[in-house]
């Protein structure tokens, strides 16, 4: 009997050891927990940061962004454009091939961009490249794009993650099936994709740049934040995307983990419908900007991990121009409200998403604006309902204010201003949720597109930002940090300001 017990005990201990042994991951596999599911691996059909993050490890663009969102060469070594910003010529890197052995050259560039801008393919990134009229192969390593109209922000469209090149042979072979069979020229190549679970990549020895340190890169899809963090703590992953700021201090207290928090190009704001009462009065909108204590709000919502907005776009955006912040001043806010004819405030609804961040943000704004008599009624909605509520034309919309955020995926002021403040971008066309309309701003934004001279463009955008800041179609809130939780031995994985992850140099370097 006793022997049997001993045997059983021994077996149990052995089993536990075996189980524990298996959980020690191979040292050169880096696992990353993303905050959502992957949808496609075709850059031309991608619109989410998570997909772009994985694609970055497999593909290259002609140009890309460095860590500060400045343009840098990738597969193009140099480029020029004419003064009207309607012709762009690229010199291509030589001796590069795709992961299926297809050589990279001007023909490959033409094939990809012709594919993306073909409306018959119905790609989500069609309009980034629809202004391309023709593509000329000037030599095997020189290619020229001719646009149908001047477009001064075109270099940023070429740097956009959707402009990463797919192997022409793969396009030929899979067509839209590239979404599940990605072939690029980057440091990692595709291995497998388990739907809803993970995408696995392995290092590719034929990469033209510096070779990957990790042999395997695994992206796991984990929407639930608490689960994501538990996976870091249990050793299943080494990098956690979108770490809730509330968990920073407890992770930092443990020497096995570290936290990275870096500025983003994301902006959060309360858009005020400027075409309806009471928000048609700029005094009311300015008063609301004075009444919100941004530092306090950041502390509560993001544990301080963010920056109060100092312009309609975030600092890292090309063309950003700093403005004088609206200080927290309740007396001034009340004075302006009285002047505008609302001494006792008013009631307004807030259309918003029902995610934790927006719920918290909404509750804090409610309390802060309540101090000057502005009673906010929060209307949190699920994503689909939210989208159908805000994408209504002015004569149909029921929206008074919208609490939301924006990230200009091209990293340029054009995409940080035009979709949000140009009259032509009123819903349902684009995202000008404030129905803001200032002819001077409209012209400045449009003029900036007619030149390729970056200094000239920046001056147009600086003027536009100054006017917008004065007109205050938004309550300007803050730009959150990109926050990640990491295992302490992880190296070489970081956030770009646009919120995508760069893991090309990932390693478990101890």
């Amino acid at each position, binding site marked *: 009997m006793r022997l049997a017990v001993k045997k059983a005990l021994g077996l149990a201990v052995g089993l536990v050891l075996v189980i524990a042994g298996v959980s020690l991951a191979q040292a050169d596999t880096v696992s990353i927990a993303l905050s959502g599911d992957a949808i496609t691996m075709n850059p031309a059909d991608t619109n989410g940061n998570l997909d772009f993050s994985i694609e970055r490890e497999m593909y290259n663009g002609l140009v890309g962004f460095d860590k500060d969102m400045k343009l840098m060469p990738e597969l193009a070594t140099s480029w020029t454009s004419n003064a009207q910003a309607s012709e762009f010529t690229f010199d291509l890197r030589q001796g590069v091939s795709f992961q299926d052995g297809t050589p990279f050259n001007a023909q490959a560039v033409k094939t990809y961009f012709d594919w993306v801008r073909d409306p018959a393919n119905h790609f989500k*990134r069609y309009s980034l490249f629809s202004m391309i009229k023709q593509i000329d192969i000037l030599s095997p390593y020189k290619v020229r794009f001719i646009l149908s109209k001047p477009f001064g922000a075109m270099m940023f469209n070429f740097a956009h993650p959707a402009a990463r090149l797919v192997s022409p042979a793969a396009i030929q072979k899979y067509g839209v099936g590239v979404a599940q069979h990605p072939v690029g020229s980057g440091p990692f190549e595709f291995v497998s994709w388990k739907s809803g679970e993970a995408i696995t990549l392995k290092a590719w020895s034929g990469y033209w740049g510096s070779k990957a340190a990790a042999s395997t890169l695994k992206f796991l899809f984990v929407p639930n934040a608490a689960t994501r963090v538990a996976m870091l703590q249990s050793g299943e992953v080494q990098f956690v995307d979108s770490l809730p700021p509330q968990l920073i201090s407890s992770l930092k207290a443990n020497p096995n983990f570290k936290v990275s928090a870096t500025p983003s190009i994301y902006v959060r704001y309360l858009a005020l419908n400027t075409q309806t009462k009471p928000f048609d009065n700029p005094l009311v909108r300015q008063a609301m900007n004075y009444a919100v204590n941004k530092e306090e709000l950041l502390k509560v919502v993001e544990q301080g991990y963010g920056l109060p907005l100092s312009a309609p776009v975030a600092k890292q955006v090309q063309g950003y121009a700093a403005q004088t912040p609206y200080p927290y001043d309740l007396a001034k806010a009340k004075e302006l409200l009285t002047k505008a004819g609302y001494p006792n405030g008013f009631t307004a609804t807030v259309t918003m998403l029902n995610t934790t961040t927006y719920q918290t943000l909404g509750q804090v704004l409610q309390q802060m604006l309540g101090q000057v008599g502005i009673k906010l009624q929060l209307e949190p909605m699920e*994503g*689909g309902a939210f989208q159908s509520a805000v994408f209504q034309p002015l004569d149909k919309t029921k929206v008074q204010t919208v609490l939301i955020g924006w990230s200009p995926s091209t990293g340029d002021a054009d995409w940080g201003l035009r979709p949000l403040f140009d009259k032509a971008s009123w819903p349902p066309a684009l995202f000008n949720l404030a129905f803001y309309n200032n002819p001077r701003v409209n012209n400045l934004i449009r003029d900036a597109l007619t030149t390729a001279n970056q200094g000239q463009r920046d001056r147009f955008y600086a003027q536009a930002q100054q006017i917008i800041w004065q007109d205050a179609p938004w309550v300007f809130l803050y730009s959150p940090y990109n926050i990640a939780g990491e295992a302490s031995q992880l190296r070489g994985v970081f956030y770009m300001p646009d919120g995508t992850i760069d893991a090309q140099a990932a390693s478990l370097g101890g």
Partner: protein
Amino acid sequence: MLAYILRRLLEVIPTLLGVAVVVFLFIHALPGDPARLAAGPDATVQEVQLLRERFGLDKPLVVQFVYFLNNLARGNLGNSYRDGKPALLSVMNHFSLTFWLSLIAILLAALVGILVGIAAAVYRNSWLDLGATTLAVGGISVPSFFLGMILIYLFAVNLRIFPVSGGQGWRGLVLPALTLAAGPLGTIARFARSSLLEVLGEDFTRTARAKGLSSPVVVFKHALRNALIPVVTMTGLQFGFLLGGAVVVESVFNYPGLGWLLIQSISARDYPVIEGLLLVFALEFVLVNLLVDLLYGVLDPRISYA
């Protein structure tokens, strides 16, 4: 018997048709535009229109409904709006994940549940009975994500014995299966207890006892077989419910089964996948019911399918 099954299967058709119509109406009652959702907030009207054409949503609703019925008749639901793969294939892939998890959970629940039920019945009205009953009912009463959170915290984060995430081989199945088993376990134990008590009170058991058969033998040989009938029914029904995909447990353990797919497809307004899922749920429910009725017959020869 065969005629009975056939008749039952034929009866499924009107139910499924009803479900299909309800589902189509439901989907189009959802606020939100699939094309705009897929394109993202920074898409131009042009891009949204391209997607609308890609999804076939540019046609009038009546035409869409005819297409839907026509496709349905040929067992085709179209391609997912999210990833472009055939919707039915997606549903089947994720179904297999849910199936294995549910099977392990239900086996665990049935095994432990029946044992607990027997113990409680044999020692009826004792403190053991009270303890076992309370524990079993406790399994039904605890919110599954609360139980899941606690298991993750204890066994994955602190002890590091099992992984948090469900997608890592058999070890990944342990914690979600335990969490999922808690509810059915309680229900099964409760049923086993009351059903056994009932049988133990019946004449033939008393006769067996009078014949001098010792108590455990009576319990196992005579009473159990009869008592098992309602327990099997209950287990089958519970299994059917589990096959619906446990939205909450799958989310806590990051297990991409049917519940996961449902949440994804509803938030993306992925009509073909939502349709496929709901039809599969309905079909499952009907088939499990049929299966339960058939098992009933096997266990109780008195029931015949005239």
